[in-house]
């Protein structure tokens, strides 16, 4: 991990995560400050002003943020996914221009989901239409994480005979960003719906300038997102483990610390198992990412599925251990309880992950 960036993120969050959760917002200057240091998309290469972290190091950084504040971590996931999409699909000129902005304080989101296209992204109905030197976008995106803060949203839609991603500045006429009111978890992550009504942009805002396969486009972008969410879940589990262990040591009932009660001790052991299991599976997937292994897409699904499930269980366990002390909104395990549930839904629900993993189970069997 980058110790400098970890310290920076730690100092910015300090004791403010609970307040951000209750307010449903992170001060934009905090996000811009971290963005300008390259901390929100730390894998971007140095030639674009980024930190050039490996996937593994960025994963550890992501878990560090996730242990403190899943909302901020979600913003990192969005910024990183936008940057990765631009890096993979952008032309040389687009990479140079757009990535440099994303390491200079500009904030970005990605927009996949629509009212009728959640798990089934093949149902995306947003259109990107050529009109001379311009393209025109029409569509309705929902639940775009960090869109409420974003200067640009990378919008996925139908284009020519396939699909494309377009970098859309949110101040373009026809773009309306409406924050999701009181989301269940990651309440300060800036989830928003984005309506595109006849949005006109220069054609060079279409990444790669050509139509792509929707499946390949979304899979490449989501693989980064899944790794990032998985590491964020490792962070959630670590936060829960710390809080539960500290509480179990301190709090006494029946004349001895909770930790000495065997049923509570079992909860602590389960939290440790969750932390170790999720960490190992994330390390494995990130090492595949860093070594350029073709298995990375499947390993990212596995890591996300395992880590999200473990995080949800760990958060429920931690609330159980802290009991009334953990049942106050904003408190670390209370946030974890709500945030972890969303992690079983985004970037491929548990069920979608299971379908993909089942396909893998069937591979190679005649």
């Amino acid at each position, binding site marked *: 991990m980058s110790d400098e960036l970890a310290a920076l993120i730690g100092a910015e969050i300090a004791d403010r995560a609970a307040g951000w959760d209750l307010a449903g917002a992170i001060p934009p200057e905090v996000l811009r400050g971290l963005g300008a240091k390259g901390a929100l998309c730390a894998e971007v290469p140095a030639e674009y002003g980024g930190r050039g972290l490996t996937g593994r190091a960025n994963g550890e950084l992501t878990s560090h943020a996730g242990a403190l504040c899943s909302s901020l971590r979600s913003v990192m996931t969005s910024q990183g996914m936008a940057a990765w999409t631009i890096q993979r*699909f952008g032309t040389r000129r687009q990479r140079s221009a757009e990535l440099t902005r994303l390491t200079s304080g500009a904030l970005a989101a990605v927009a996949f989901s629509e009212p009728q296209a959640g798990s089934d992204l093949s149902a995306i109905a947003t259109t990107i239409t050529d009109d001379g030197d311009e393209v025109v976008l029409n569509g309705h995106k929902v639940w775009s994480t960090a869109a409420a803060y974003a200067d640009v949203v990378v919008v996925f839609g139908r284009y020519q005979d396939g699909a494309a991603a377009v970098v859309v500045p949110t101040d373009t006429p026809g773009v309306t960003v409406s924050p999701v009111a009181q989301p269940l978890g990651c309440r300060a992550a800036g989830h928003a719906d984005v309506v595109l009504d006849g949005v006109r942009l220069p054609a060079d805002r279409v990444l*790669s300038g050509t139509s792509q*396969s929707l499946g*390949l486009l979304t899979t490449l972008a989501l693989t980064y997102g899944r790794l990032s969410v998985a590491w964020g879940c490792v962070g959630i589990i670590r936060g829960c483990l710390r809080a539960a262990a500290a509480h179990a040591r301190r709090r006494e009932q029946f004349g001895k610390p909770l930790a000495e009660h065997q049923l509570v001790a079992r909860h602590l052991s389960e939290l440790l198992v969750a932390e170790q299991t999720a960490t190992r599976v994330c390390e494995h997937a990130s090492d595949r990412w860093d070594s350029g292994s073709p298995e990375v*897409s499947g390993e990212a699904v596995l890591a996300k599925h395992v880590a999200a499930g473990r995080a949800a269980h760990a958060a429920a366990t931690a609330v159980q251990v802290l009991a009334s002390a953990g049942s106050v909104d904003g408190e670390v395990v209370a946030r974890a309880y709500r945030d972890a549930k969303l992690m079983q839904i985004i970037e491929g629900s548990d069920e979608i992950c299971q379908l993909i993993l089942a396909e893998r189970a069937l591979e190679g069997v005649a």
Partner: protein
Amino acid sequence: MSEPTTTPPLSAEHVRTELKRFLEERTKTDWAVDTDLFATGGVSSLFAMELVVHVEKTFGIAVEGPDLRIDNFRTVDAMTALVLRLAEAGSGE
């Protein structure tokens, strides 16, 4: 991304053989060089990404931007042409 390769120039035959080997290993199917891998009953988009990453790693090339078109990965022949073109362009830098 891998450093530019210092090995001798790639031959189409070598690339084709390697791609067919990878496809057979992963899908247990012997694909003809001109068969559309993504046609009905073919491989998934998750596997498309595997192909992209495999081609990059195996041949030390970067497939980015417009080159990521799915048509470049549709058949063994299409991938072979892409690899040879990018390897050629890379060695000229």
